C-alpha cells in the first residue's frame, strides 16, 4: 500500500551488508553520520528488539538541541529494521507539539539486501500521517543544515577518513 505521503528511497552501497547493517544500527556508527555538519549527534541509543529504543540527540551552533526517541517495531538482523517516531520505547505514545518543535510522526522501514560484488541494496520507505499533525520542517530549525549540499558531504567523508 502506498500513499501519496510516503517516500521511497533506494541506494546501492559499495559496502558489504553486515557492515551496512552495523553502520545503520550501532550508536557508535550512527553518531558519525546522523546529523549534517556543523550539527553533531553526541548521544544515540539503539535497542534492537520490538519495543526497543531508537534515540538520537543532535546539537549544533546557536544552541540547537534536538532529541527524539522512536520505538523499534521490527528487527530482522542484517535484513530489516522498522521504527516509528509515533512512539517511544515500550510502545508509549510520543507527544508532538503543534508547532513541530519536537518533531513529527513518521514510520521508517529500512531493508538491506546483498547486491553482489560486496555491495548492498538499501531501501527506505518513510510513512507520514496525512492529517494536519504532519508537521513542519521549518520549526525544526535546521532546514539549511539538513539539506546539506554535496560539497559539504564530501568534506564530512574526508574528515572521517582523516580521523580514521
Amino acid at each position, binding site marked *: 500500500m502506498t500513499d501519496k505521503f510516503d517516500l521511497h528511497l533506494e541506494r546501492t552501497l559499495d559496502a558489504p551488508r553486515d557492515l551496512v547493517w552495523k553502520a545503520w544500527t550501532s550508536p557508535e556508527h550512527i553518531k558519525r553520520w546522523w546529523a549534517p555538519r556543523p550539527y553533531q549527534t553526541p548521544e544515540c541509543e539503539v535497542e534492537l528488539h520490538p519495543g526497543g529504543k531508537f534515540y538520537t540527540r543532535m546539537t549544533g551552533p546557536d544552541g540547537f538541541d534536538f532529541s527524539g526517541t522512536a520505538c523499534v517495531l521490527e528487527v530482522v538482523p542484517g535484513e530489516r529494521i522498522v521504527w516509528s517516531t509515533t512512539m517511544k520505547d515500550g510502545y508509549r505514545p510520543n507527544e508532538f507539539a503543534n508547532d513541530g518543535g519536537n518533531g513529527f510522526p513518521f514510520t521508517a522501514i529500512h531493508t538491506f539486501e546483498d547486491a553482489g560484488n560486496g555491495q548492498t541494496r538499501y531501501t527506505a520507505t518513510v510513512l507520514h500521517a496525512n492529517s494536519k499533525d504532519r508537521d513542519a520542517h521549518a520549526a525544526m530549525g535546521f532546514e539549511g543544515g539538513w539539506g546539506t549540499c554535496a560539497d559539504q558531504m*564530501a568534506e564530512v567523508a574526508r574528515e572521517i577518513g582523516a580521523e580514521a
Partner: protein
Amino acid sequence: MLNDSASLNRAFAALADPVRRGMLARLSRGPASVSELAVPFQISLPAVMQHLKALETSGLVASQKKGRVRTVHLERDALAEAESWLTRRREEWEARLDRFEDYVTSITQENASDR
C-alpha cells in the same frame, strides 16, 4: 519559523476536506464567486461559507467583496508551501543517505586496507 509551521498546519487541515479540495480545484482555473463555487456541492450556503472561511484562514484562498458579490481566488504561494513539504522530507532523507553512504564507504575501505 513557528508561524510558518502553524500556517502549514492550517493549510493541511484545509486540504483534508474533499469539499475544500473541490473548491481549490475550481479556483485553480481562475477566480469564482461564492455562488459559482457552491454549484457542484449539495450543501447549504452556510456550509459553503464555513468551508470558505477554513480556506481563507489557511491562507490558501483570499476573497474580495464588490457590491453583493464575493469573489474568491487562489493564493498560489500558500499552496506551493504545502506541496513542497514532502519534497523537503525527501531532500532530508537523501542528504542523510548521502552521509550514510560516504560513511559506510569510508569504513569499508578502512577494513579492506587493514587486511
